[in-house]
């Protein structure tokens, strides 16, 4: 391997100001790199890659029985919250939500507030029953997790007598 290159003599290099053409091209690359970093920082600050003022989306199913607020783009291993707003059946004192198994496996489910009274397997999902004070028309439920997947995952949730709500979340490294 050749390690001695045919650089010009040092006095010539100094007289020429070394390699101004290269430094001029590098200057453009430097500016492009700095703008790219600035763009990335602004995207992150806005929350377009999770954890920011514009990171949340709201979604409801067709019959309005479940509404969620969630982050479409989440960060691998970083905490994120899905807030469910569910309709309580008239006169009911509990609400049952069946969630996709991936919400536990892939979403890295860490806590549910309030705590469900019962958990049970329901086909390919998990059915959670939450007690609700009599007279309440809505129940707010928070799922907190740290995603353990990279890329996209499709999630679903539905009430016993309601349409299925589907949404997808994408985890960046």
């Amino acid at each position: 391997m050749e390690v001695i290159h045919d650089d010009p003599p040092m006095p010539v290099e100094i007289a020429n100001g070394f390699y101004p053409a290269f430094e001029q091209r590098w200057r453009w690359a430097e500016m492009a790199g700095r703008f790219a970093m600035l763009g990335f920082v602004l995207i992150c600050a806005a929350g377009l890659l999770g954890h920011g003022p514009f990171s949340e989306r709201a979604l409801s199913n067709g019959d309005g029985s479940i509404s969620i607020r969630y982050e479409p783009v989440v960060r691998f291993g970083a905490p994120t919250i899905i807030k469910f707003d569910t309709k309580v059946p008239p006169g009911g004192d509990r609400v049952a939500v069946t969630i996709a198994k991936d919400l536990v496996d892939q979403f890295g489910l860490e806590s549910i507030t309030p705590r469900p009274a019962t958990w049970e397997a329901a086909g390919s999902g998990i059915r959670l029953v939450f007690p609700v004070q009599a007279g309440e028309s809505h129940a707010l439920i928070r799922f907190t997790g740290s995603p353990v997947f990279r890329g996209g995952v499709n999630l679903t949730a539905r009430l016993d007598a309601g349409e299925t709500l589907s949404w997808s979340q994408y985890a960046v490294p």
Partner: protein
Amino acid sequence: MNTVVKAAAAYLIVLFVIRLIGRRTASQQAPIDMVVLFLFGGLSVSAILGDDHSFTGAMSALFTVGLMHVSVSWLKLRFVWFERIVDGTPIVVYRDGDWDETNMRRLRMQQADVRTAARQQGLDDLAKVAVAIVERDGKVSVIEKS
């Protein structure tokens, strides 16, 4: 595997970010420069290892960074263009009484930096300086008039 890929990626990203923010940070030891280097180190460690507190994880990251360093050094030896991208080239900022303000601005170099370099060389007057050059590592070389 994951740690190895993240360590290799972090090495390249940190290398080019340091290069992109300018050679001043790489060489100066003023507080504002040290803050950047310390934070780069801390943030990189948490990004590479995350919750992996194992000895194996730390060693795999350490060996990866070591091997990346050897690889980049070899590529610098092999390809002059790669060496220039990674290290840059020297830049003249002062010649025969004239400051090159464009280069000074780009390097965020102050007159005081050149004066300091002149004094460190035992010169008490810039009139005795033929050329001041900001080297690839960010240090200022002063060549005395003959």
